């Protein structure tokens, strides 16, 4: 027994990737619909526990290094966990664990029953990919796991009930593969000029060739590739359709994790690999990223206001929120980075909660095998008067929406606080103004839904529906509850985020709160 425990504790960084990675083929072997779900559930919760244990260890003992195959870097592949990716790993595994509880109900309705085991396998593979990216200490490894997560997410999105899910998935596949290939190209150029693939090693070997044109091109390639996966305006084209037409739980899962991990890749490469001295001080990546992020922030929120489909509206809101995260990064101050990183988790929690609330609505209105004519179960008009018939779902939506606006005592406020503080630290008050302007736009799109929920009559009496099952409502409330709890008890998230920011900006450690 103690032998087993020591195996687990020694292999913590590895297990969280290996568990879902092996559970996926196991799902295919098991084949039985509910049994596969149990396999997936047990494994995701185990890796969640694993990530928390890992984060605790990193927080107490400092960065961890794990040599896969026993080969030390740069020859072998290293897994390197520091405060930043421990945080991201916790988010991804937590979201997977919670969303998976809601998955069976939603899959029952939206996915044909003979392929549920494959859907769970794809879900686990996507998780594998994301966890793999977040824990990788090797640039090429990032690419490999990026492709695992991408390919599985294309498959998951295509499962959506409408035929547009297919075309959206195919378009995403084409664009996403371009993004992945750009990252591959960037990694190749880095390898070409340094001879290594290990991230820490790269960090040390790049300054020697500072000002090297190949390095600049490599940086451009990695940034473009990461921004495609991140859906930063103007590379966002794939996101609204993909989020709208994917099955509800898949949207909830991807919205909370995939873009966040892409953000992690961007931050890791810009700050750790290329280093602030090179990427910011010399080549001013922030001069490009900051305007784009600000445009994304305002454009996403403005587009959300005019959207009549709630799921799509939330997708546009995601664009806006991605803008916030990148603003935090592009401000290059301690508080800004803390804000960006804490928003990564906060937005994951609240957006996942909101999308799950929408999943509750879809469960009530949608029907299996939707044809073209039964589309639009997330149309705003469908939500009329739901405040009465689905009080818990509606309340969850309102609370998530308040967090999106950034009302104090919600997580959204915490993020905004640090972002604005970062803008002031950087002396860019106009950035602060735009951040707050975009929050004001969020009031408009959130309140549009709240009004429909509570102050509109249901269209027809026979449309009167009951509350969603607790299997879906429970996870929704767990996430919404978390976004309230971490809005008040901010110590864990903010401490981790600021520790992560210190990892990225070691020169500024000690400054700020």
């Amino acid at each position, binding site marked *: 027994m103690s032998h087993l425990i020591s195996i687990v504790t020694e292999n913590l960084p590895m297990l969280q990737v290996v568990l879902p990675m092996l559970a996926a083929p196991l799902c295919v072997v098991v084949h039985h619909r509910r049994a596969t779900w149990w396999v997936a559930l047990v494994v995701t919760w185990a890796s969640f526990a694993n990530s928390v244990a890992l984060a605790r260890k990193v927080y107490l003992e400092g960065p961890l290094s794990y040599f896969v195959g026993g080969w030390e870097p740069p020859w072998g592949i290293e897994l390197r966990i520091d405060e930043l990716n421990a945080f991201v790993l916790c988010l991804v595994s937590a979201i997977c664990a919670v969303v998976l509880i809601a998955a069976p109900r939603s899959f029952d309705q939206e996915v044909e029953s003979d392929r549920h085991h494959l859907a769970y396998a794809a879900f686990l593979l996507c998780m594998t990919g994301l966890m793999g990216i977040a824990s990788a200490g090797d640039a090429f490894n990032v690419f490999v796991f990026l492709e695992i997560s991408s390919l599985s997410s*294309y498959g998951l999105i295509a499962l959506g009930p409408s035929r547009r899910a297919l075309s959206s998935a195919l378009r995403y596949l084409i664009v996403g593969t371009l993004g992945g*290939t750009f990252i591959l190209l960037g990694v190749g150029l880095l*390898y070409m000029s340094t001879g290594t693939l290990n991230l820490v090693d790269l960090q040390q070997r790049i300054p020697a060739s500072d000002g090297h044109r190949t390095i600049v091109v490599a940086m451009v390639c990695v940034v473009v590739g990461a921004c495609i996966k991140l859906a930063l305006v103007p590379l966002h084209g794939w996101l609204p359709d993909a989020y709208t037409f994917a099955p509800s739980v898949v949207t909830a899962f991807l919205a909370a994790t995939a873009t966040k991990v892409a953000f992690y890749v961007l931050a890791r490469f810009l700050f750790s690999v290329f280093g602030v001295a090179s990427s910011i001080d010399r080549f001013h990546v922030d001069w490009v990223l900051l305007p784009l992020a600000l445009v994304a922030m305002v454009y996403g929120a403005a587009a959300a206001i005019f959207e009549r*489909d709630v799921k799509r509206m939330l997708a546009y809101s995601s664009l806006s929120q991605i803008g916030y995260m990148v603003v935090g990064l592009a401000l290059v101050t301690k508080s800004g980075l803390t804000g960006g990183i804490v928003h990564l988790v906060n937005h994951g929690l609240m957006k996942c909660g909101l999308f799950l609330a929408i999943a509750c609505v879809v469960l009530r209105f949608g029907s299996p095998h939707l044809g073209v004519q039964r589309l*639009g179960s997330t149309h705003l008009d469908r939500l009329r008067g739901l405040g009465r018939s689905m009080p818990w779902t509606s309340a969850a939506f309102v609370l998530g929406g308040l967090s999106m606006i950034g009302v104090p005592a919600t997580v959204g406020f915490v993020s905004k606080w640090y972002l604005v503080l970062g803008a002031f630290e950087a002396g860019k008050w106009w950035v602060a103004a735009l951040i707050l302007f975009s929050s004001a736009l969020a009031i408009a799109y959130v309140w549009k839904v709240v009004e429909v929920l509570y102050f509109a009559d249901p269209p027809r009496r026979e449309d009167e529906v009951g509350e969603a099952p607790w299997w879906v409502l429970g996870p929704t409330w767990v996430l919404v509850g978390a976004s309230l709890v971490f809005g008040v008890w901010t110590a864990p998230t903010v401490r981790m985020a600021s520790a992560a920011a210190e990892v990225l900006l070691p020169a500024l450690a000690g400054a700020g709160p």
Partner: protein
Amino acid sequence: MGPGLYNYWMVIVLMMTGLYVVLARPNLVKKIMGVTIFQMSVIMLYITLGKVAGGTAPILIEGAEDVAYSNPVPHVLMLTAIVVGIATTALGLALAIRVYEEFGTLEDDEIRDAEIADAMAAEAGGAD
């Protein structure tokens, strides 16, 4: 500009061709082909940089001294990349088949027209 950059330039031309096909051709299968060319050109770049002048394939020759071997690392990486490429192509084609079955076309603009029609039907269906 050194003389040894010819390979890179050719790779860049191929890369541009692939990218152009993806961006400009509306047929989705053609786009997938473009992606393949784009990926292949990146693979060529890696293999190019693994070559050592006068070298030989990195398979150790028993007893031989002073043999220059080409760099095996890019080969390893590109084996993986090729596999990733075929996996992506396969999934893309599977999606293309399904899209064709549902929409009856693979031209991106025609699919968009059908999607707009769907959206309007949904608006009408949702608003009733």
